[in-house]
């Protein structure tokens, strides 16, 4: 396969509101046809970045290149970019059909073509039965689909989605995640989604960018971000992580209680520096083999069944917080554990990530 | 935005500033204005003759306010206690007369209170044979006219906080052993003070500056500040003194508004609590 083409280039873009810097020198490339997620806690600058892509904010510095052309100062109504608003922003006085046609009418297309394209997108988004309803007569999920259809019908080069699933309940959200993936595949348009929900971006995105305080921390595939977080913040923000604070040594971390955690030291850390060793809950095994690199015993404080998994809170001398361990229900059935038991935990050196603390 | 603000500035702010300035000038010998600075117009406001009119106005306006607030609060309470779907209708009809012409509403009272008016007819019908009672052109007639004209606003103002009141508060008070009267006095009344204050301020401010009602129902016998201002401008031709009187009127209005702000401020603490209990 040929190298995917870059569609959008965000080049050292900064934006400040008065003394507050919302976006601080971010550079990112977004590729043709990918599903890209901008992820971060609230106030990290992801929404400001999105609004700059849509044209509602102008960067103080840097360039935004779409197909190689700088659009940073192009007004929103002149960009081949559309935004799906968090509140959906449906026009309350127009029917579903009128909402969807609106953008094409702005392009002054012939009526017949507008009709054809609107019919097609209503069919794709399964909105045909609701075409003549007003927004107030729709459910949350239907409103969301109208907002999506209204943006997609313009066939933008880039579709921006601002927390698209935020207003839906949990069950509907799961279904809509898959629905969005399917639609994106079907229409072949590049999607950029803003979310604060790390699970959502892991599920949906082809690639994701993690932002904090207006800065880009990491940009990679969900798998790479999960398995090889760039720093302690990313490791903590994405998924669940157990941390053991201590000092860096040549072959791992020396915990406060004198225990050694074996793992590969990153090039940026030198022995003696304050460091934190980390391991994912699902990488920890109960009753490890004798040759396992890292072993520690602890007391089971609490157990929680979560369908397929069993989650354990195990108090160990390694860290002030109990260790989170996830084992399959199968494994738990083979050797049952209960609260109060003293058990041994173990994990491989290859599963340990070490960060500056 | 700009054209609207310009309009307000040119035709409200500037004229009002002009009146303020006017109050510091001397009256010319043959009417007109002599442009020399003086404070005597304000001195004249406190002259016993005029101060008396001020006090008289305040008394009439105060009485009208008190009566309007009592009747209006009772009506608002009854509306708020009516079935929910009836409330908007009742409220609408309570406020409707307020939007018909003020002069006509005042005139209606002349018809009622005239020597041979409806009230006299009614008394006759009940067998009264004496002289028709003189009701028109009395202080009572002026007060009745003011109450009648401004009552709808008091109902509206009192209804707002009453309808927002969490019914569980009254129930909690009863549950804790308070009587109906104590519950009203210690729970309901304090929480609805902002509405009462807004209604009272409205009636008082509009009454004390009124000149139509005293002129028509008082027959000119009961001078209020509004009439005094009117006379200075249209009959006595002493504009500087009229301006000083108008400024005194504005001063009274600002004082009353300040009192309202304080009353509302004190009460709003309670009210916020009362509502947050509902949210929680």
């Amino acid at each position, binding site marked *: 396969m040929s190298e995917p083409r870059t569609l959008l280039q965000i080049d050292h873009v900064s934006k400040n509101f008065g003394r507050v810097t919302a976006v601080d020198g971010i550079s990112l490339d977004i590729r043709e046809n990918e599903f890209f997620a901008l992820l971060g806690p609230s106030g990290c600058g992801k929404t400001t970045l999105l609004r700059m892509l849509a044209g509602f904010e102008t960067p103080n510095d840097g360039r935004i290149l779409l197909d190689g052309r700088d659009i940073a100062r192009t007004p929103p109504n002149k960009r081949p970019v559309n935004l799906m608003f968090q509140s959906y922003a449906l026009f309350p006085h127009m029917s579903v059909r009128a909402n969807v046609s*609106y953008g094409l009418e702005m392009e002054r297309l012939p009526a017949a073509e507008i009709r054809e394209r609107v019919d097609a997108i209503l069919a794709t988004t399964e909105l045909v039965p609701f075409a003549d309803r007003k927004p107030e007569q729709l459910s949350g999920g239907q409103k969301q689909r109208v907002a999506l259809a209204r943006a997609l019908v313009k066939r933008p080069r880039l579709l921006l989605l601002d927390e698209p699933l935020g207003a839906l309940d949990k069950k509907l959200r799961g279904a809509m995640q898959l629905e969005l993936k399917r639609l994106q595949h079907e229409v072949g348009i590049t999607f950029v989604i803003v979310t604060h929900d790390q699970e959502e971006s892991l599920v949906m995105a082809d690639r994701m960018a993690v932002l904090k305080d207006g800065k880009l921390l990491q940009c990679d595939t969900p798998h790479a971000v999960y398995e090889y977080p760039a720093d302690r913040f990313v490791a903590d923000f994405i998924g669940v992580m157990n941390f053991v604070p201590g000092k860096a040594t040549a072959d791992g971390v020396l915990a406060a209680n004198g225990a050694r955690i074996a793992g590969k030291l990153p090039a940026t850390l030198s022995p003696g520096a304050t460091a934190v060793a980390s391991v994912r809950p699902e990488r920890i095994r109960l009753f490890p083999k004798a040759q396992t690199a890292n072993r520690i015993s602890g007391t089971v404080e609490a157990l929680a069944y979560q369908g397929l998994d069993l989650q354990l809170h195990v108090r160990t001398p390694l860290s002030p917080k109990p260790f989170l361990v996830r084992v399959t229900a199968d494994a738990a059935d083979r050797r049952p554990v209960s609260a109060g038991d003293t058990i041994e935990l173990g994990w491989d050196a290859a599963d340990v990530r070490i960060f500056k603390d | 935005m700009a054209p609207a603000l310009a309009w307000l500035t040119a*035709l409200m702010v500037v004229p009002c500033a002009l009146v303020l300035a006017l109050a510091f000038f001397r009256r010319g010998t043959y009417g007109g204005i002599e442009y020399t600075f003086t404070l005597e117009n304000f001195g004249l406001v406190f002259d016993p003759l005029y101060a008396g009119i001020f006090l008289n106005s305040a008394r009439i306006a105060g009485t009208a306010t008190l009566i309007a607030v009592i009747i209006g609060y009772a009506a608002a309470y*009854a509306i708020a206690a009516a079935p929910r779907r009836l409330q908007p209708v009742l409220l609408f009809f309570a406020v*409707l007369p307020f939007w018909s012409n003020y002069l*006509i509403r005042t005139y209606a009272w002349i018809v009622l209170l005239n020597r*041979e008016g409806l009230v006299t007819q009614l008394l006759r019908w009940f067998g009264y044979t004496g002289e028709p009672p003189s009701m028109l052109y009395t202080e009572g007639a002026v007060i009745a006219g003011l109450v009648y004209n401004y009552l709808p606003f008091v109902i509206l103002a009192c209804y707002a906080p009453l309808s927002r009141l969490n019914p569980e508060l009254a129930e909690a008070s009863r549950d804790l052993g308070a009587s109906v009267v104590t519950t009203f006095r210690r729970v309901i009344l304090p929480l609805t003070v902002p509405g009462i204050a807004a209604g009272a301020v409205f009636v008082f401010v509009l009454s004390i500056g009124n000149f139509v009602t005293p002129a028509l129902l008082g027959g000119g016998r009961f001078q209020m500040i509004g009439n005094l201002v009117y006379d200075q401008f249209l009959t006595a031709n002493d504009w500087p003194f009229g301006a000083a009187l108008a400024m005194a009127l504005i001063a009274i209005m600002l004082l009353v508004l300040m009192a309202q702000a304080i009353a509302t401020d004190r009460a709003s603490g309670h009210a916020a609590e009362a509502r947050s209990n*509902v949210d929680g």
Partner: protein
Amino acid sequence: MLPKREATSMAERSPATRRALWLVLSLVFAFLYIPIAVLVALSFNEGGLPTAWSGFSLKWYVSLTGNSEILSAALNTLIVALISTAIATLLGTLLAIGIEMRRQYGKGLEALIFAPMIIPDIVLAIALLSFFSMLNLTMGLHTIILAHVVFNLAFVCSVVRARLKSFDWSIVEASADLGASALTTFRRVTLPVILPAVIAGALLAFTLSVDEFIIAFFTAGAGRASTTLPMQIYAMIRFGITPEINALATIVMAVSITALTLSQRFNRGIIGQ
């Protein structure tokens, strides 16, 4: 936000309390409506006097149509109300949008907009009289219009602002995002959504202007040419009551009450959230 449960309504109260509350309501409504009802009834009274009912007649209405003073006053009122309402609706709506879009409510600005609604009429009236005479402006219908726009625009602005408080500004951005210019967005999105409030505000302004007496009285200038209907009514009440006034009062009340009822309709029929 508000108590979801129905407030302790009359149904849950004791019969005695319920009767007392209905009694209060009946008395208050009687107090509010009897004086008006008497006027309306008298306007159809053949004899025209409150002393005796001498039969139903429309003769006072007919005689109104022959009264040229009243007709010209009515025409003047209509001119003043229509023009001042048109100007006030335009300026007041733009002001409301300007304030709510920027979300800057300085205290001074708030006071400036609130002032025309609270200043005693007599004060604004003498202020404008002083102002116009200082400018040596010949007073007439045009000065009444200038004056009426002052309070009308404040009322329109407050009605439209109330609607804009619940306005979702993201639909304006959505329109731009879909390719609409600022003007198209105003015409096709903003205006249609706030239109009920704009109409309600305009009807309210019209009612206020039709009924306004004191400011018109002071800013009309000398001469009969610019007499408005309320001025005519005031003169009729003060200097000799003729039964015609009952008919005139009934018509004026009908007009303002219709306008207000329509205004309420529009304001309640607001679309969407």
